[in-house]
């Protein structure tokens, strides 16, 4: 369970301060599929980054399954990301020098998994996202939809409990976007907690719950 209380995030200092989040309180149950919508610049990514332990809030409390994430050291935070969180980005962020399988296996390698097991698990994961045949392909040879599926497979590699997706369909056409959405839904059905940021209200409507943000605050919630 994710629990946030009065999360405030400031960027910059002095006169240049941007208040990206202005006191967000939020509770997300395990296994929930949550969509976050809102205009560009309203703080959606900032919120997701804090959720994923990639950024720290300026003020407020954040507990994940009872653990105080804000109290973690850099090292603990890295471990938290590696073991609990799967992150999917709008820009995919695949490593260009690695094949699809190697990309998927990357978090496993950092977790100390051996080469043979990495290979096997990467295969299973790629199969899971329907890309078994692109095993050896480099990202440059994949379409946007395929890259995003590789990214999702990579996010799943360490069996995270929470999958965070920041506009995962933002760079994709509608058809591919729907495929990704369907995949996320499927993962959610299997028990994964999913938090997805999106512009697309149609996609957002497919979530269990929809949070609407504006100017650093939550202004509406729909179940």
């Amino acid at each position, binding site marked *: 369970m994710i629990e946030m209380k009065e999360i405030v995030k400031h960027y910059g200092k002095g006169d240049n301060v941007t208040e990206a989040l202005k006191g967000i309180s939020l509770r997300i149950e395990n296994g929930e599929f949550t969509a976050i919508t809102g205009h560009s610049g309203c703080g959606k*990514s*900032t919120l997701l*980054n804090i959720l*994923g332990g*990639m*950024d720290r809030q300026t003020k407020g409390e954040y507990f994940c399954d009872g653990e105080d994430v804000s109290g973690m050291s*850099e*090292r603990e935070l*890295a*471990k*938290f*990301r*590696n*073991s609990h*969180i799967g*992150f999917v*980005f*709008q*820009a995919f*962020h*695949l*490593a*260009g*020098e*690695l094949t699809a399988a*190697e990309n998927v296996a*990357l*978090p496993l*390698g*950092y977790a*100390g*998994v*051996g*080469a043979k097991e990495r290979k096997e698990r990467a295969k299973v994961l790629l199969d899971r996202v329907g890309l078994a045949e692109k095993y050896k392909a480099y990202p440059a040879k994949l379409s946007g939809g395929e890259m995003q599926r590789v990214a999702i497979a*990579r996010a799943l590699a*360490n069996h995270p409990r929470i999958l965070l997706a920041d506009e995962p369909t933002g760079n994709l056409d509608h058809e591919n976007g729907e495929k990704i959405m369907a995949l996320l839904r499927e993962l959610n059905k299997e028990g994964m907690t999913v938090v997805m940021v999106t512009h697309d209200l149609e996609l957002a409507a497919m979530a269990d719950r929809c949070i609407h943000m504006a100017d650093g605050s939550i202004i509406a919630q729909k179940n």
Partner: protein
Amino acid sequence: MKKILFLLQNAWKYIRYNKFSSIVLFCAITVGFLFPMMALNDVNNLLWDARISRYEDAAGITILKYLMPYKEEAQMEEALKQAEKSFETAGYVGMAQQLVYAKGESYSGTVAAISRDYLTVLPCELVEGSFFSEADYSESGERTCLLLYTTNLAKDGVKVGDSIEILGNSYTVKGIIRAPRAFGGVMVPYTFAGEVLRGGEDVNISYHIITYGHKGVVSIHFPDQLTSEREKGVKEDEEFFASVWKLNRYRMLRAGIIILFTMINMLILFLGMTVGERYSMAVRMALGISRKSLFLEVLFRNLLLMLPAFLVSVLIYPFFCVFVKSIDSHLRGDTMLQAGLGGAVLIILITLAVLWFGFHKQGVASMLKRRAE
């Protein structure tokens, strides 16, 4: 171990993928290593000069020691012993030292201008040819010289009747002698002292360091302020060394500037590389890579480029030296390894310090974001 291998593989894949920048960087590092090596050589020369001026009387020995190419170890030992012995009796001899740098295949030795009674004062034995006759002391006569049996010249096959060149003048080898307490490797009649030593003509014996090539060509190189008699010499030596020190300060400055420039260049290159890597690092950090692994992976990337580049620079260093020597002959080659390694370690440390203390603090999200935009 598994993980180290994984990180190494990752580093290698990254380098391979970013071919162009890796090659540019590789070349830059290679060239980058050459300059500190040269600069440090210069510093080494400098220390050498300092040592020489410190131990005036032992100068001949020091110079012999440093000029001899290592492959001639045995010959060097012999020449050294010879030189040491000769310095035992050097009390009354006006001495002058001149820094002569080994060039390519050259060796060093001493040249002595000897008086008529020299051969009666010191026991020596004729191996081949003959001693100087009265005619050899005549200024208008043919220039002749004696070679000490133990010197390289004689060992290199210079025979009686051959001629060698000293300061542009040709001397015919009249004889080869064996003399346990000899003063010079090459002896010329004292009448030619002025020519050879460019000092006072009242000297009867003087030491000088010469270099000569394999083929028996002697090139000898003296400044005008060379001294002759000791009493006179001490004062003049001081002046001479003062001028050397002045030169040293300039050289030290020059070496320092070269090192500084190189280090700054390398640092900028590596920082550039690190900044260029920020994205790939940010991706890994988002996946929850530990600081240690991140650190190692970047270290491996740097090392995979740096070590081969260093190797290549060491390999091409001699050719580079030949090139630079054609511009500046004051160059020696025995400190290049220390110099290169020192430079490498310094650069790695600076790069990693930046990475360790600076880079990690920037935040994953903002780094990823900047790339995406």
